[in-house]
C-alpha cells in the first residue's frame, strides 16, 4: 500500500535554491579545506592532517575530487541522481490542472525531502479520495484544494478530479490494487495502485512520469558517455502504450504468462494482472502480439 512516488513539482529545474546548492558543493569539492574564521585545531594544510590510523588517501598529487558537474558521464550524472527530478506537470487531459508554478521550490524536486515517511505522504494524498458528505463538503473544500494541488505536484493520479469525489455516495473506499512495477535496467522497483486508474491511458501516463528519468538514467549508464538525456529538466517520455518508444509495457497474468498491456478490456486486465514490467522493445519480442499494429524499433 505504499507507493513510491517522485515528489512533485513541475516546471524548471533551475530554481535559485538548487543552483546555489550545486555551486556550493562544487566549491567544497574543488577547494582545499577552507580555513575557519576563528582559530581551530583543525589543520588547514593537507600535509599536516593527522590521520587516525595512518590512513592516507593515496591519491597522486593530492588532487581534490573533480567537481560534480564536470564532464564525464559517470560523474556528470551523479548530480542527476542526487536531485531526482520529476517530469512536467499533469498533461492537458487533467481538468483540474493549472500551468506549472513558475517558482518550483527545491524541496518539491528532491527525492526524500521533506523527510516524511511514505505512509504519511500516501495518507495525505489519499485524503482527497475519501468519501465526504454533502454537508461537510463545504467545510473541507479548502483542504481539498490543497490536497489536489499537492496531488498534482506529486504527479501521481493526474486524471483524478474533485468531481469524482463528490459524486461518490459516502460508500466505503475502493480497495486498492497495488502491483509491483519493474523496468529493465532499473534496480528500483515501484508500486502502483491500479484502482486509482480506470483506463490504460492514465496508467501509461503515470508510469511514463514515474519512470521517465530512470529510462534516461539507464541509457546514460549503458552508453557511458556524456549524453545529456535530460532536456530542459524533463526526461524523454516513453509513451509506453503506443509502441513508439524503446520500451513497452508488459504484465504477468494469473497464469504466470507475460502479456503486452492494452489488448484486453480494462476490467479484464485488472482481474488478471499480477505485476507489471517495462521492457526494452527488443527484449519483448517473444510476447503475445498486440492487436494494434505499429512499428517497433528493434
Amino acid at each position, binding site marked *: 500500500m505504499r507507493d513510491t512516488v517522485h515528489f512533485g513539482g513541475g516546471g524548471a529545474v533551475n530554481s535559485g535554491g538548487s543552483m546555489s546548492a550545486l555551486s556550493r558543493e562544487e566549491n*567544497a569539492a574543488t577547494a582545499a579545506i577552507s580555513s*575557519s574564521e576563528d582559530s581551530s585545531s583543525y589543520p588547514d594544510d593537507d600535509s599536516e592532517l593527522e590521520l587516525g590510523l595512518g590512513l592516507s588517501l593515496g591519491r597522486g598529487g593530492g588532487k581534490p*575530487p573533480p567537481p560534480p558537474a564536470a564532464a564525464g558521464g*559517470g560523474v556528470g550524472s551523479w548530480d542527476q541522481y542526487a536531485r531526482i527530478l520529476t517530469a512536467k506537470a499533469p498533461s492537458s487531459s487533467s481538468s483540474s490542472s493549472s500551468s506549472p508554478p513558475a517558482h518550483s521550490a*527545491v524541496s518539491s524536486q528532491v527525492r526524500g525531502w*521533506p523527510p516524511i*515517511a511514505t*505512509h504519511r505522504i500516501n495518507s495525505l494524498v489519499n485524503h482527497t479520495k475519501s468519501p465526504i*458528505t454533502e454537508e461537510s463538503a463545504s467545510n473541507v473544500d479548502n483542504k481539498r484544494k490543497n490536497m489536489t494541488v499537492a496531488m498534482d505536484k506529486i504527479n501521481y493520479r493526474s486524471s483524478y478530479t474533485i468531481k469524482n469525489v463528490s459524486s461518490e455516495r459516502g460508500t466505503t473506499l475502493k480497495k486498492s490494487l497495488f502491483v509491483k512495477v519493474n523496468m529493465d535496467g532499473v534496480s528500483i522497483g515501484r508500486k502502483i495502485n491500479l484502482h486509482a486508474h480506470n483506463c490504460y491511458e492514465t496508467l501509461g501516463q503515470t508510469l511514463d512520469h514515474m519512470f521517465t528519468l530512470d529510462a534516461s538514467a539507464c541509457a546514460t549508464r549503458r552508453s557511458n558517455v556524456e549524453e545529456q538525456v535530460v532536456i530542459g529538466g524533463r526526461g524523454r517520455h516513453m509513451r509506453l502504450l503506443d509502441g513508439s518508444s524503446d520500451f513497452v509495457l508488459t504484465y504477468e497474468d494469473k497464469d504466470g504468462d507475460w502479456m503486452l498491456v492494452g489488448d484486453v478490456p480494462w476490467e479484464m486486465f485488472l482481474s488478471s494482472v499480477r505485476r507489471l514490467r517495462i521492457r526494452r522493445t527488443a527484449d519483448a519480442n517473444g510476447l503475445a502480439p498486440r492487436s494494434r499494429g505499429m512499428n517497433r524499433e528493434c
Partner: protein
Amino acid sequence: MAYSLIPEEVLEHVFSFLSSDRDRNSVSSVCKSWYEIERWCRRRIFIGNCYSVSAEMVTRRFPEVREVEIKGKPHFADFNLVPEGWGGYVKPWIRVMSGAYPLLEEMKLKRMVVTDECLDLISRSFNNFKVLVLTSCEGFTTHGLASIAANCRNLRELDLRESEVEDLSGHWLSHFPDNCTSLVSLNISCLGSEVSFSALERLVTRCPNLRTLRLNRAVPLDKLPNLLQRAPQLVELGTGACSAEIRSDIFSNLTEAFLACKKLRALSGFWDVVPAYLPAMYPVCSGITSLNLSYAIVQSPDLGKLVSQCINLQRLWVLDYIEDTGLEALSLSCKDLQELRVFPSDPFGAEPNVSLTEKGLVSVSEGCPKLQSVLYFCHQMSNAALITIAKNRPNLIRFRLCIIEPHAPDYLTLGPLDTGFGAIVENCKELRRLSLSGLLTDRVFEYIGTHAKKLEMLSIAFAGDSDLGLHHVLSGCESLRKLEIRDCPFGDKALLANAAKLETMRSLWMSSCSVSFGACKLLGKKLPGLNVEVIDERGHPGSRPESCPVEKLYIYRTVGGQRVDTPDFVWTMEKEEEVLLTE
C-alpha cells in the same frame, strides 16, 4: 575469593533484576563465570542492526532468549533513500531461531523484509508465541497474517505499525480461532482494505483483556460504537474513518459508547474526520494523555476545541492545521505536554498554506515545562526563536526541526541558523537526538562537536561547507551512535581522519555527498570491524575513476562479517585479510 561462596543460583537471581542491556553487558565482562551465568539467563535481546551480528552467533551465546528485537534498514529508508532490495531480510533469523528458541515469546522487527513464509514459520515454530510487532516492515501479505492468527494460540499482541502489507483478503481476521481470548493489543491501522467486520466484532467480544485496538481506515464510524460497547475497558483506541453522514443517531451512539470507555488514555486514527462528530469524544478527553491527529484534516476552531479539552495531554501529534494560535492555546491548557510532533499538511506546496511559524514552537516551549521531545515541520525559523526555545527548555532530549525549504536562512537576518542550533546544543545538555535543517555552515557543527556530548543520533541534510563540519561532529560528539547525512559537501578527509570513530558507532549513512570510491576502499581495508557498503545504481564503482564520489555509503560495525545477501547495486569493500589471501 568471596565470589566462589556465592552460589550460581543466587547470582542468577541477582542478575534477573538487571533489565538494561548495558548493565548485562558490563556484568558479562567481570569474569568468566559471571559471563557464563549471565548468558544463560539473558531473556531479552536487542539487535540494532541485523547485519552487525549473525543469528548463529546470537543463539550460540544466549540460548534461553524469550524476546527478540531486531532492526534492519537504515532510518533514511523511510524517505525512499534506500533502494528496494537493499536487504534487511528477517528469514535467516527466523530459520535459526525456530530451532534455537522454541520457547520464544516476543518478536519485534523494524524496517525489515518479512515474507509470508517467515510469518508462517513463526506461527508454527514457537508454541508460546505471544507478541508480534512489525514496525515499517514490508514483504508480507494478509495470508501471512492469517497464519499468525490461526496458529498462535496464545497471541497477545499483533501490532502492524506502518508496515506495508499486501492486502489480498480481509478474511484473515476470521482465522483467529473461536477459543482465542488472549488478545491484549491489536493494531491494524496500516491495512488498506476492509477486514471482515463481524469477525472483528466477535474477536473483540471474546477478548476481555483487550486494551489496545487500532482500527484501519476502512472501519466506518457508524460501526465504531459496536466495538466500543464490547470493549469498554480499552485504554488505547485508533478509530477508523471518522466520516459519516451527519445523523443524530450515529452521534448519540458514539457519545454513549465513548462515555462508557472510562479507561481510555490514547486516541489515534481520525481519518477523514468530520468535525461535527468530534464532540462525541469530549467525554473522554480529560483522561487522554496521547493524541495522534496527524491524519486528521481538521482545522481551527474544531481542532483547538478538541485539544484544549485534553488537559492531561502528554503527547500530541498533529498536522500544521493547528497553526500558531492553536499551539499557543495548547501551551496554556496542556501543562503536562512532553512530546509534540507537528507534520506538514502540504509538504510540497511552494507557499505555506497555513499560518504555522516558529512562533508556535516558541509558545509551547514557554508554556510546557515538561516538553522534552519535539518534531516540527515549518517554513520559517530564526536564530532568535531557537535561542529562546533553548533557554526555555534546557530539558529537551529530542529536537528535530525540519524547515521545509533546504538552505532556508534565518528569515529575519537572512543569515545561517548556526547560532540558533548552537544555543540548542549548548543549553540542552541532555540532548540525545537532533535533526538539523535550514541554512547552516561549518560553524554549527563546531557548536555541536563542542557541546553535544550526550548526542546519540544526528541527522544532517543540505548543510555545511566542507569536511571541517563533519570533522567537528566525528571528533567532538562522544556519545554518537548513529549519524545520517544527505546532500552535504563532506568528502574523504574528515572520514579518513576520524576512521576509528566509526567503530564506536552503530552506523553512518551518507548519500549525495562527496566521498570517493577510493576512500571507501581504504576504509574497508583498514577497519575490519566495519562493513563499508557502497550503494550505487550506476553500476560497479570500479568502472569509474577512484576519485569519483559514490552515490550512497552505509558503514556499520559488525562482528558478523560481510553480508551474503547483497543485491547487485551494493558492494561491500574488501577487508585486508581477504586482500592478502588472494595475493
